[in-house]
Structures are given as structure tokens and as C-alpha cells.
């Protein structure tokens, strides 16, 4: 929405960002062609998960925290189970870890396919939604739906349900899927590898605006593979690295007035989590086919153009399909689905790589397993400051565009992050103000 101010300045308002998960908006103030203020407003209401987790049992967070987000419940389930097992000093089995990774592949496939084709691609192809895109690109949309469905099918088998899986518990699973059940999904997953590698070429052909920043990328890292369900340490492009247990010593959350989602600092500074960070810090762990696809897409081993996140996401999509097939091919029946986990007083951290970036949970429990304290830090809240930095740069770079085009470009700069606002508040309002006075002309919904 655009407002003309009396002094000739302007206010652009986007009250509700579209094609993101959850509710938020943008506020940008421009004075004499200079961007003077940028805010990502998150007005999705708080639900107080950390509040009501106190007093619940250590076995409950996988089911409860899954409800923070319908798009990435497995990320929450993985981080919470890992934290509780760390506190209780339990190591599960390699097979349980492998099955967790397979479930996580399902979530990456479902979430990445949703964002790449249904939420992000319409920006590059000039459509309001995937439904309109479907009229002109039926083959692409049919493929996207097929890929997404393969991810959901995998989650339904391993997790019992695609949204809020029921089969996950502290210590492992209630039931292991069988070789026969997994084999039935293999053909669609194998086809997914080929389709998503072809899709890398497709999205690499989009027109990308030139915009780069010198981000501090932060990601999990695992010695043996590309990070999904867990990692052994946190690594950053600044050269810092430390074990997962030390995350709370390096990442500090803080509350700003314009957001119901807490912001965060990494060693005191703005940082970036998500596919671009993961890719740039773990390129060596990708499969040869994914690395080849990246080279062919002229991506380089580090990518600093946030608009190109769609290419990286598509490479990760192919990777998740390849991993799923690899795990299914080595699966054997007969492994116990879980190990017993007795409560033990203590504090611990669990972290995983949600489709949109690193998520970590910290819990403190007592001897009876009752939760005394909980902290849940999802990727979108950690990325808020980076999103605002991108908005500032994009608004300045394209300041001479008309209001409609500038607003659209700024919305795109936000969608590059695949922000999940439901996660972040466990909350987004988009506004552009062009003005000399500094006060937005419209308070906007819910801010």
C-alpha cells in the first residue's frame, strides 16, 4: 500500500507478506532517496511455548514443540530429542540416527519443494501464485507437486503423518518402517533425484538481480555428511567453531519492540543461517552429483547472492533425495526402534538444520524429568537482522523503482529466506515509508 505524504515523501505499506509461513510485514522509510530505517515486523501473536513447557515431562517436547511449525515439525522433534538424550547421557543406535535422517530428508523434500516451486519461483517467472503459474508451466508445476508428494509420502511412512509426525520419541521411534514399506517408496525417490537435478538447471536459468553481502554464515557441521538431523559442531565463515553444547555461550537472544520474535546475535554480531550458509560451509560434504550440478549452475563453492538461494535450495533438494535412496538401500529389518531413556537432572542443547536454517533447543530438567527451563531458537528469528540488512540494501539499490516495483522487490528479498514466522514467534507486517518526517502514515495490522 502506498501513501503520499504532504511533504512529497511516500509511505509504502505491505501489511501482510504473502507466500511466507505465518504473519508479518515490512516497514521501510526513505528520505531524500536514502533508506533511513528498515524493520521486519512480526505480528504473529506469541504462543509462549517456553512458558508452558516448564512443568511438563522431558518426554513431551517432541510432540509439543512440533506444533510450533506445521512446515518443519521434524526440525523441532530432532532438536528436542537430541537435547533430552544429551541431558540424560544416552546414545541411541546408528540405525535410529539413520532413520531420523531419513525422516528429516522427507521434511527437507516437502519444505524445499514447497518453497522453491510454490512460493519462490512465481517471483522469478512473474506470477502471483503457483496456481497461475500452472496455466503456463503445467509440466513444471506437475513435477513440483510430484516432488513434494514424495517428501510427504516419506514423512507419512517414517513419521506416521506428514504434519506433526507421531512416531518420534525421546530415545528413537515407536515403530521402525520395514524394508518392504521403504522399498515401495524408492522408485518415486529415485525419480526425485533426476527431477530435482533437472530442476537445478531450470532455476539456474532464472534472471538474478546482482546483490551480495558479506554475511557471517553459520551452520552445523558433521564430520561424515552434510548436516540435516544433527551435527557435531557449529562452524562460521568467521573461522569460529565450537561444539553444539556451547551454542548458548555464543548466541544471545534479545527483544526489539517491532517484533514478537526475539532477535539474535552470534558472538555479538548479525549472522545468517539457512541453505546459503549450509552450502557455503559444507560444500565438500555434498555428493559428487550435487557438486557437479552446482558447478554447472556456475554457483561456486560459496554463494553470497541471497536471490540465488533458490538454486542452493534445489541442490539441497536433490541431495535429500539422494540421501533418502542411499539410506533405504542400506536399511535392514530387525533393529530396535528405540532405547530406554531414564531422566537425569541436568541441562543440554540439541540442534538440527531445519530447511530454513539451524534450530537449537536448550532444556534444564530435574531428577524426575520435569522441565525447569526451556529455550527454543528457530532459524527465522536468528535471520531477522540479516533479512533487515538485505531489505536495507535492496531498498537502496532499487530506490528509483516505482513504489509498486520496489515493494515487490523488497518482498522478494524477504522470501529469499523462506521465512517461517509461525516458527519465529513461536510472528511478519511489511511497510515502506518514503518521507521526511519519519512517522509511518499507517500503523498497520497488529503492529
Amino acid at each position, binding site marked *: 500500500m502506498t501513501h503520499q505524504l504532504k511533504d512529497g515523501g511516500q509511505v509504502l505499506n505491505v501489511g501482510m507478506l504473502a507466500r511466507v*509461513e505465518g504473519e508479518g510485514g515490512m516497514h521501510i522509510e526513505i528520505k531524500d532517496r536514502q533508506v533511513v530505517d528498515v524493520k521486519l515486523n512480526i505480528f*504473529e501473536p506469541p504462543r509462549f511455548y517456553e*512458558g508452558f513447557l516448564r512443568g511438563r515431562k522431558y518426554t513431551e517436547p517432541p510432540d509439543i514443540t512440533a506444533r510450533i511449525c506445521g512446515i518443519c515439525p521434524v526440525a523441532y522433534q530432532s532438536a528436542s530429542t537430541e537435547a533430552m538424550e544429551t541431558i540424560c547421557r544416552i546414545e541411541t543406535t546408528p540405525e535410529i540416527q539413520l532413520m531420523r535422517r531419513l525422516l528429516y530428508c522427507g521434511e527437507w523434500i516437502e519444505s524445499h519443494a514447497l518453497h522453491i516451486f510454490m512460493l519462490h519461483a512465481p517471483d522469478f517467472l*512473474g506470477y*502471483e501464485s503457483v496456481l497461475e503459474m500452472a496455466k503456463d508451466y503445467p509440466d513444471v508445476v506437475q513435477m513440483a507437486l510430484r516432488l513434494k508428494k514424495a517428501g510427504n509420502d516419506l514423512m507419512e511412512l517414517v513419521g506416521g503423518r506428514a*504434519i506433526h509426525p*507421531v512416531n518420534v520419541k525421546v530415545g528413537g521411534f515407536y515403530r521402525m518402517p520395514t524394508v518392504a514399506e521403504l522399498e515401495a517408496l524408492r522408485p518415486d525417490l529415485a525419480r526425485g533425484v533426476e527431477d530435482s537435478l533437472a530442476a537445478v538447471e*531450470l532455476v539456474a536459468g532464472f534472471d538474478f538481480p546482482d546483490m551480495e553481502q558479506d554475511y557471517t554464515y553459520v551452520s552445523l557441521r558433521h564430520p561424515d555428511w552434510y548436516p540435516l538431523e544433527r551435527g557435531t559442531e557449529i562452524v562460521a565463515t568467521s573461522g569460529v567453531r565450537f561444539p553444539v553444547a556451547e551454542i548458548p555461550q555464543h548466541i544471545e537472544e534479545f527483544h526489539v519492540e517491532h517484533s514478537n520474535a526475539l532477535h539474535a546475535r552470534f558472538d555479538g554480531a548479525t549472522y545468517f543461517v539457512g541453505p546459503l550458509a549450509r552450502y557455503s560451509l559444507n560444500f565438500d560434504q555434498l555428493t559428487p552429483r550435487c557438486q557437479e550440478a552446482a558447478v554447472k549452475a556456475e554457483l561456486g563453492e560459496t554463494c553470497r547472492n541471497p536471490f540465488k538461494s533458490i538454486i542452493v535450495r534445489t541442490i539441497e533438494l536433490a541431495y535429500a533425495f539422494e540421501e533418502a535412496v542411499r539410506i533405504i538401500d542400506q536399511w535392514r529389518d530387525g533393529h530396535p526402534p528405540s532405547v530406554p531413556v531414564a531422566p537425569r537432572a541436568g541441562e543440554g542443547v540439541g540442534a538440527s538444520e531445519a530447511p530454513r536454517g539451524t534450530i537449537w533447543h536448550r532444556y534444564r530438567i530435574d531428577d524426575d524429568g520435569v522441565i525447569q527451563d526451556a529455550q527454543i531458537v528457530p532459524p527465522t528469528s536468528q535471520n531477522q537482522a540479516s533479512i533487515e540488512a538485505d531489505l536495507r540494501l535492496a531498498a537502496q539499490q532499487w530506490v528509483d523503482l516505482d513504489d509498486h516495483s520496489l515493494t515487490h522487490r523488497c518482498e522478494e528479498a524477504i522470501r529469499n529466506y523462506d521465512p517461517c514466522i509461525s516458527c519465529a514467534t513461536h510472528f511478519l507486517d511489511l511497510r515502506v515509508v518514503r518521507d521526511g518526517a519519519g512517522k509511518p502514515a499507517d500503523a498497520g495490522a497488529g503492529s
Partner: protein
Amino acid sequence: MTATAPHGLAEPHGVTEEQAQTHSHAHGEEVPPASARPKLAVWKFASCDGCQLSLLNCEDELLSIAEAVHIAYFPEATRAVVEGPYALSLVEGSITTPDDVRRIHEIRAQSGVLVTIGACATAGGIQALRNWADVDEYRSVVYAHPEYLRTLDTSTPIASHVDVDYELRGCPVDKKQLIEVLAAFLNGRKPRIPTYSVCVECKLKGNVCVPVATGQPCLGPVTQAGCGALCPSYGRGCYGCFGPQDSANTESLTRQLVELGMPADDIVRVYRTFNAGAPAFAAASDAVAADARDRAAQERGPE
């Protein structure tokens, strides 16, 4: 941003015969223009997005749905916004802020049929746990500056504020049930959604009874069907995603949970999850909590 035609993209008219058959154009029917189709709106309040995602998860049906209705407002899926009134509004999420209260009345005013989707919209969701707690304390546990927040002390279902035409259960909703509800309202009939318990679904599937065989607590006897007895099929007790069935006998279930040896605190928590605010579950949990308080008072003896 419009791109120059990227290589590798299909020609706009390159639909294969196989795809055409799965499409409603198959019999040569023209899709009616948007203006002739009923307008669908999807609204969100406090929630996880999972129930509206269920609509996007209808991969096999999504394009047909988009041809049967005019998706007029659905921010998660499209930037396009078409003004109301709307023939059918799907509402996700619970009412937790003063602004929500205003907004749901506006939505009701411009909706022909209003259907709530999921446990948040129908029972208040997991965030209804605040109804038993000190919200000021929650604010200060989670946020450094509670004064920045505007939030109500309660999380309440949509029907506590406006008339609702149909409440679809589930945390999340089941996508087949969601399609049934869409089809029913588009055709002016009542949705065919069973209101019996999960136990019925479980027996039909031939599952071994989880509480009998393993001693795990199971809300199946008091929970409405709809998930296909998912948890028992995976060897765990039902945890009540679809909320209380009609005339749920929670007293009997509470007795059974006591017999299984569950402490009162644990029983209270079993009833207080994603449908904690549903009247039957709220009453059952309150009864167990009150009983435990009375017992503790008796044990302490007269002051």
C-alpha cells in the same frame, strides 16, 4: 520481476495427454471464469500453519480445487487479494490478541460459510494452556520486554466469538476430511465426518489394543476419529489430536488411567495438550486436579 524465458521450461501449451487426463479439462469441459466460481478465503490466527498447509499438501487435488473455487484470499499461497464477500472462509488458529477479536468479526461479516480448521480454531490449541496459567509470568519467561507485547490472557476457539458453520477437528486436520468439507459446502450438503471414537477406527484396522497390551495411556476411547487410529497403529497410545468425541466418557477413562498407576499430575497433562481447551477435556483435567488437591488437603489433616 519477470524473467526472460529460462531454458528448460516447458512450453506453456505443452501439456501431455497423460497430464490432461488427470486434469478436469479431460472431458473437454471449460473451467468457468473466476467470477463464476465461489470465492474461497483462508485466514490465520495463532497457529502453526499446519492446517492450511494441509490444503497445499493435497498434491493430487490442488489444481482441481483451484478450478472448482476461486482462491480469493490465501496469503500463504498467493500475493493476489480479491475483495470479499467470500462464499467459504476457512479459519485456522485461535484468538489470542485484542486485534484478533476485531478481525474475526470482520471475517464473519464477509463470509457466507465459515469453517474452522484444526484444534487451534476449534478448541484454542496448545496455546490454550495459558488459560490455566499466569500469562504475565509466561510473558516474562519468554520475552525481555513484556511491555512490547499485546496479548490476551486466554486462547479461545473461533466459536467463542462468532457463529461458526462447521468445525473440522484435528491437530492437524486430515486432508481427506478437508476435501470432504470443501466438497460438501460447495455442493450445499452436510459434511460426512464420523463423530465416533478412535477406538472404532482402531478395531476396524484390527490393531491390538495399546493400553490393554502395553499399559500405555490411550485417549482413543474419548477422542473423535479422523486420523485412522494413527498412534495405535504405530504402537503408541492416542494423544487426542481430534479432540473429545460426542459424549466422551472421560470419567471412565480417568479411572482406567488411575488403575494403570498414573499419578494425578500425569493424568492432568494427558488431557491438557492440543485440545486442552475443549470443554470435555478441560473438565476432565480440572476434575483430576481438584480431586488431587482434595486428597492432599485430607492427608495434611485439619489446620
